[in-house]
């Protein structure tokens, strides 16, 4: 019974519309930054290399190369400070965690772009049934 109450408190804080992205996608994360009494949007763009946790504690990691240096930032999925996550390019990956990208540089660190219409092709047979 206790857990049900705790779950309820947590689930109330979930994001109303879930963030639609997958591991391997190139994304732009829009975060709200408060400076003094002003609020502005800061964008962090990079590659989603993993998701972890569940419920309110779930986070995702975005990796980018900034001035030649790899930078990773971890965002809590349900944080109200995250305005939205824009998917720039879908990736096609076979792993849940892309930590192997940390050891790669340049072209080998880019993921194969998902073929055009692949996701639609997948959906079409299902719809036909």
């Amino acid at each position, binding site marked *: 019974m*206790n*857990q049900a*109450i*705790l779950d309820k*408190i*947590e689930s109330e*804080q979930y994001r109303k519309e879930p963030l639609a992205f997958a591991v391997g996608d190139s994304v732009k994360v829009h975060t*709200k930054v*408060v*400076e*003094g*009494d*002003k609020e502005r949007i800061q964008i962090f763009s990079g590659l989603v290399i993993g998701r972890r946790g569940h419920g*309110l504690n779930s986070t995702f990691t975005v990796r980018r190369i900034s001035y030649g240096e790899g930078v990773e930032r971890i965002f*809590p999925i*349900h*944080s*109200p*400070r995250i305005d939205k996550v824009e998917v720039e390019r879908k990736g096609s990956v076979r792993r849940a965690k892309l930590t192997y990208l940390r050891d790669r540089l340049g072209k080998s660190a880019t993921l194969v772009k998902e073929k055009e219409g692949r996701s639609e092709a997948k959906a079409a047979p299902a719809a036909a049934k």
Partner: protein
Amino acid sequence: MLGLLGKKLGQTSVYDSHGNLIPVTVVLAGPNRVIQTKTQASDGYNAVQLGFDDQKEQRLTKAVLGHIKKHGAVAVKRIREFRDFSLPVKPGDIVGPNIFAVGDFVDAIGVTKGRGFEGVMKRHNFRGGDASHGAKGWRRRSGAIGQRLFPGTVMRGMKMPGHMGQVTRTTQNLQIIQVRETENLLLIKGAIPGSNNDYVVIRESKKLRKGSERAQRRAAGPVPAKSAKEKAAAKVAAKPAADAKKK
């Protein structure tokens, strides 16, 4: 002094209006039944007796049940008296978490988790011995406990191994983050003594009193970070003042 009996349900976290994740303890703090009110005239002091956690009558001792029956109250598991209760209540009333408001500071009283017979490192935070440099059999010991022929005895209150935990402890100055009246829940910032499902007492904080300047300052939270522009402006403003001082 306002207070409530409650039950610790567990810990979780909530986002505040700034988007900060606040750790909270969820406490079931109602319904609290007013069993008896004491006044200066009747008992020589002012107090309110509250009962919490309704119980079958057959599960109580006759002594407790007799006391409850005398005041026409409902059988409860826990009873506690709060002196100088600042709300006007009468026997039969029900009080709940709504006696506190969001931002108030409270003290939480509970019985800490029992840890059994523990050594000095865990019990008193001693540092133990070296792990290396030829150390042997001296990893978790306390070291010397006395001096020489004078004083020739071990000082009283010397910290030694022994039973740890399962004592009543108070955590002071915890902030109320949410009050959920319909569910009888209080969300209190931080940890409180005891394990889940333990009974706790939540009372008005003794030190950070409601409305006091210190309490207000604490409730306001940390000052938001200044932007680079503002910082530069503040520097410029501070400079002439510093120059003037030099002169």
